């Protein structure tokens, strides 16, 4: 089991936001979690990312508590598309891509530059290699999201978590994103968990569908 969530519950100041969530994903699953605003899906994601701690229940990734997996198990993350946040952020695509091969070890500090070709190759897969020296804020929303996906995939993760990756993207960009995810899922057995509230119909390769509603997550 890649992800195993048992009896997960979370309250904000006494108000239950998530109740008794049970969910399991096997290797090679392509799961989509949908839900309206306030359904609890954002809280669920924040728990998965270690930003919040569950009050009851457990989240295990490859049989270990998720907090122990960060930096060890190969997890990738694509954040919500936020053009306004990135608009003035002073970083080039190159610098953003370097974070995709981050390793906590001391020696890794001195080897990152040798990985440039691998980073460019990952960008090439997303047709973004021509933007290596561009400032991230100069790119369109769809281009930024392709860079984020390239960054997440360059470390060859076994599990990829995506937070509303299609927000603000045109249909063509969503199709491109879907094609890359489906290819990796099919060929490399990459396990995908995507949280979204729209466009899920364009992801034909998905095999598991979950819905968040009033703090409960059910499989459809």
């Amino acid at each position, binding site marked *: 089991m890649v992800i195993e969530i048992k009896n997960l519950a979370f309250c904000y100041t006494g108000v239950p936001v998530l109740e008794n969530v049970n969910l399991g994903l096997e290797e090679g699953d392509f799961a989509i979690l949908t839900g309206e605003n306030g359904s609890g899906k954002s809280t669920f994601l924040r728990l998965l990312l270690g930003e919040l701690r569950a009050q009851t229940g457990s989240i295990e990734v490859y049989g270990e508590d998720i907090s122990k997996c960060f930096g060890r198990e190969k997890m990738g993350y694509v*954040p919500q598309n936020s053009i306004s946040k990135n608009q003035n952020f*002073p970083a080039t695509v190159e610098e953003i891509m370097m974070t995709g091969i981050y390793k906590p070890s001391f020696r890794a500090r001195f080897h990152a530059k040798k990985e440039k070709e691998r980073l460019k190759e990952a960008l090439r897969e997303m047709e973004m290699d021509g933007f290596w020296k561009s400032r991230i804020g100069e790119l369109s929303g769809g281009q930024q999201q392709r860079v984020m996906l390239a960054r997440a995939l360059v470390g060859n993760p076994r599990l990829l978590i995506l937070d509303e990756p299609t927000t603000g993207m045109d249909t063509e960009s969503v199709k491109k994103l879907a094609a890359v995810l489906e290819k990796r899922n099919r060929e490399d057995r990459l396990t995908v968990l995507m949280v979204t509230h729209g466009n899920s119909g364009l992801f034909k390769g998905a095999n598991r569908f979950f819905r968040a509603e009033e703090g409960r997550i059910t499989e459809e």
Partner: protein
Amino acid sequence: MSILQYGFMQRAFIVGILLALITPCIGITIVLKRMSMIGDALSHSSLAGVALGLILGINPVAGAVVTCIIAALGIEAIRKNIPRYSEVAISVVMSAGIGLAGILSGFVENGAGFNSFLFGSIVSISWGELALVVVISVLVLGAILFFYRELFYIGFDENAARISGVKVRNINFLFTILTALTVSVASRTVGTLIVSSMLVVPVACGMQMAKSYRGTLICGIIVAVSTTIAGLFLSYYAGLKPGGTIVLLEVVWFVVVMIVKNVNK
């Protein structure tokens, strides 16, 4: 150059340049994490430490360092308790710092000494204070260079950084302590009312001038160092307050860069 014949001016230049090197290094993370007010909160808290130092007859800068660190830890503690409204922590600590400084200032016998911390007095730095600035500057520069990748990663995407194995909580804690140290020594030289500007304005210039994070940091340092040197010269020959002169030159640089950038659009 007669200005550099004086020991007090030599010390002023050394301290000024060191602070100009470290303030953008701290400032870039502060700006990118949208925590610009933290400089104000810590500098006002440092003022309470200055007053306490003057009352107890110990080095006021040492007092400022202690209260700044306590204030920084207070901000972290409040943030943990109310994570959804973390900016409240800065306001609470700033209020506490101002209140405490106000009360303690009433017990300070040497009012002129206390007031000199409001706008700084870089030209009256002692050898002991110079040594303290050197030690803290080396410490801050070393830590910032060592954790460069982590600070960039957290600034850009804290969740992705955590998943990749960055010890986000530890790095944030360390950064808060480094900020406290920087603010406390900078308060002595440029003044508590101005130190926040020194953290933010050079970085704001760098963001207008460079595309990359590295470029922004380098441009920020260039702006800070050049305005510090020019400000010290100008204040010496024109009889102006050095802290205020330096910050105003930084603001002039920012406005010029903004105008040039808009004209070239």
